[in-house]
């Protein structure tokens, strides 16, 4: 075994191998007397540090995500069709809102703690040590059994070959540390040593993303059906003093009658004062402070003037249609206007948009440009008829205690109004996430160790070098390339390389089936 001088303690039974430089934050000492609470805390801490547990946690999260994903697909249906026994299970599957379930939240919470402890805190000291104070001393055993390994022989004194290697390695952006031990010099060299730090911004980003979600849900809002008829202003509420007015609505259609583009000309009012004015379309929202207004859809509206018999104005504005269905014609867009002060609620129905479709259910048979209005008084006596009328544009009807004028047809716009204070957190998280991954993956930490010793005869010396790259094919390849460069830089040295004998392709012993893979020797 080519174990290196300082064996790294392994976290008990959890097979955490790699943190080559991973000192458990609480070293286990079975002989010391500890209270049960201490043992329990220790257990919990170890659980959160365990990469094995992390694998299962992430896998479990993935499983939940898969279950939730399939719920939005026809897959469970297909399963139930194949195996009718599963029918009740499939029914529950479709009704389980995984992503808003307690279980899902609990798993996310558990993961955040594990990421913070196992992915970051517990590893920080070890990683920092490996960067700042790596062990320089190594063993002959390691250098003899490591594959590939190189031997440089030269008839120059030890100090000179050390000097030559150091200069050559530094040119290759390696950091070189040496330590004298008797007549030997031990050498440690590495490059991209900060690569190992990339894991911190990355794992941090995962926590930030969850945090951003919480902040957004807790302190933000999202109105998905914010309706403003043309000419009207509606309050945003949700802790703001804003309201949004639709000054004008434009829609253009393609030849086949489907909407090609639509634009809402909006004014944002803050506490009644106009503070922003902008035309928005789908994909081009308006932003005022941190409130974002999106164009979602639009619909038909009517403008009405309601007066009492004395001629006093009760209502002058638009009523959106299409949000209700009326029994008089379920296919036609209908709207409701409540006038509590007058004790009346108006139902308004527009002509059927597709009159040929189910004509029998249309009891009104309105012509184009007509509307039907019905007034329901709050104090109506059972059995009494509510007054109603069919109106053309600019006509007025007398509906008992009120008069209703149909001024004209207009549009309403359907907006989404949202504020999400989590967004800046996401932006930071995204940068950390991608940046962290890039540092970890694209600037791999490369390490090599060596011993330079006098080689028998007077002023000759031998340098043995080996990469710390067990089972790391790319690392071994880089070492071979580095050796070629070293041999041109040190022409006085004769270089021989020992490769693993077993494999003819690219060197290195093949990875054994399972088990015994990771050893804490890679320090």
């Amino acid at each position, binding site marked *: 075994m080519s174990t290196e001088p300082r064996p790294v303690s392994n976290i008990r039974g959890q097979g955490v191998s790699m943190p080559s430089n991973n000192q458990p934050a609480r070293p286990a000492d079975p002989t010391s007397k500890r209270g049960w609470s201490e043992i329990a805390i220790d257990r919990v801490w170890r659980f959160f540090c365990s990469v094995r547990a992390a694998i299962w946690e*992430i896998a479990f999260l*993935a499983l939940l*995500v*898969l279950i939730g994903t399939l719920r939005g697909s026809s897959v469970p249906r297909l399963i139930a069709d194949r195996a009718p026994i599963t029918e009740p299970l499939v029914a529950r599957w479709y009704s389980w809102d995984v992503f808003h379930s307690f279980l899902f939240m609990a798993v996310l919470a558990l993961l955040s703690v594990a990421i913070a402890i196992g992915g970051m805190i517990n590893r920080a000291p070890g990683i920092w040590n490996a960067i700042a104070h790596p062990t320089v001393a190594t063993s002959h055993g390691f250098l003899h059994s490591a594959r590939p390994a190189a031997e440089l022989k030269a008839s120059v004194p030890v100090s000179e070959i050390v000097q030559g290697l150091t200069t050559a390695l530094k040119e290759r952006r390696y950091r070189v540390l040496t330590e004298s031990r008797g007549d030997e010099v031990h050498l440690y060299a590495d490059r991209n040593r900060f690569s190992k730090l990339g894991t911190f911004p990355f794992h941090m980003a995962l926590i930030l993303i969850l945090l951003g979600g919480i902040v957004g849900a807790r302190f933000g809002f999202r109105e998905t059906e914010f309706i403003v008829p043309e000419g009207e202003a509606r309050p945003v509420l949700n802790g703001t003093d804003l309201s949004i007015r639709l000054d004008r609505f434009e829609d253009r259609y393609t030849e086949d009658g489907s909407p090609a583009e639509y634009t809402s000309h909006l004014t944002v009012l803050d506490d009644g004062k106009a503070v922003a004015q902008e035309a928005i379309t*789908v*994909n081009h929202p308006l932003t005022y402070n941190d409130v974002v207004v999106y164009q979602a859809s639009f619909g038909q509206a009517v403008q009405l003037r309601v007066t009492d018999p004395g001629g006093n104005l009760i209502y002058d504005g638009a009523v959106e249609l299409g949000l209700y269905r009326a029994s008089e014609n379920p296919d036609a867009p209908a709207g409701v206007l409540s006038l509590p002060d007058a004790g009346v609620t108006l139902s308004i129905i527009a002509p059927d948009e597709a009159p040929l479709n189910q004509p029998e259910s249309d009891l009104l048979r309105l012509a184009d440009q007509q509307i039907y209005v019905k007034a329901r008084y709050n104090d109506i006596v059972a059995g009494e008829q509510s007054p109603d009328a069919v109106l053309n544009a600019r006509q007025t009807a007398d509906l008992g205690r009120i008069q209703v004028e149909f001024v004209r047809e207009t549009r309403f716009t359907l907006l989404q109004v949202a504020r999400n204070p989590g967004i800046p957190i996401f932006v930071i998280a995204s940068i950390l996430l991608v940046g962290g991954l890039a540092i970890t993956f694209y600037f791999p930490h490369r390490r090599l160790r060596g011993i330079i010793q006098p080689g028998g005869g007077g002023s000759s010396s031998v340098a043995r070098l080996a990469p710390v790259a067990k089972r790391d094919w*790319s690392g071994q390849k880089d070492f071979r390339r580095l050796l070629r460069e070293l041999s041109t830089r040190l022409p006085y040295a004769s270089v021989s390389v020992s490769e693993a004998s077993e494999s003819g392709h690219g060197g290195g012993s093949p*990875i054994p089936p399972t088990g015994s893979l990771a050893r804490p020797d890679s320090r």
Partner: protein
Amino acid sequence: MEALVKLSFYSFTATTIAIAGASLCYIALAVGRVRFRMATMRMSDGSTVARPTSELTRTPDSLGSFATMLAWFGLVFQALAILFRVLASGSAPSNMYEFSLVFVFAITLIYLLFERAYGIKQLGAIVMPIALGMALYVWLLPVEMREVNPLIPALQNQPLMTAHVSLAIFAYAAFAVSFAAAVFFLIAQRWRVSWLPSAEMLDDIAYRAVTIGFPMMALVLILGSVWAYQAWGAYWSWDPKETSALFLWLVYGVYLHTRSLRGWRGTRSAVILILGFAAVIFTYYGNYFFGGLHAYGGV
């Protein structure tokens, strides 16, 4: 314009033929050549018997060069097919037909880059047939999709959409390479086949491919939510297409952890990569199972 659409289609036809040829050569290369010969055996009574035996031997390298050449042909023609298509529509790829064209291109490109970097050709026996399968899928799409159509308003956010989708496709292509490496890893571990790359190299290829695909997939999720935020005001709405991409990403996250764990690195890592690629296929063809925001023009 009509002519360009046709030209694009002809180039794609050439690609299909080239990668079909390449697939066959790569498969022959990986499987090796079956040699039949008569072996004489001395029986216990002293007589000799001749009987036919077969053995696998290495196929000549010239076949490999031929395979590589065909794959490069396919790549060039596919680049032309996409270029003509973009010129014809005046916009970046935007429906399942066009995405699949890009997919064929991406798989071939990423594969060829790995082939060059590692100097091995066996992975082509799995990756090129995947590219071929994708090309054949394009042939099965309804003919109307070969025409150029306008987009629905919400999808008209070209730069973001192009980045989002093409990153996804390149990530999937990288995952296809890691899938192939994982399959060969399992083979190399079970049987000693002298001309297959070492398990260690295959492990490295798989890992490298994931280090390309995983950050790309992270960007796909990020850009997707930026786009959703701009279009719908919600950066994440647990839409099945989003969550299936998240699932995929988590699977590869699991894989990256297994690499540092005794007893997991190796066989189990390879199995996870195979599962991961199944998830890739599911995500790509998810539109056949899901409704929702991601039901792009046509599919």
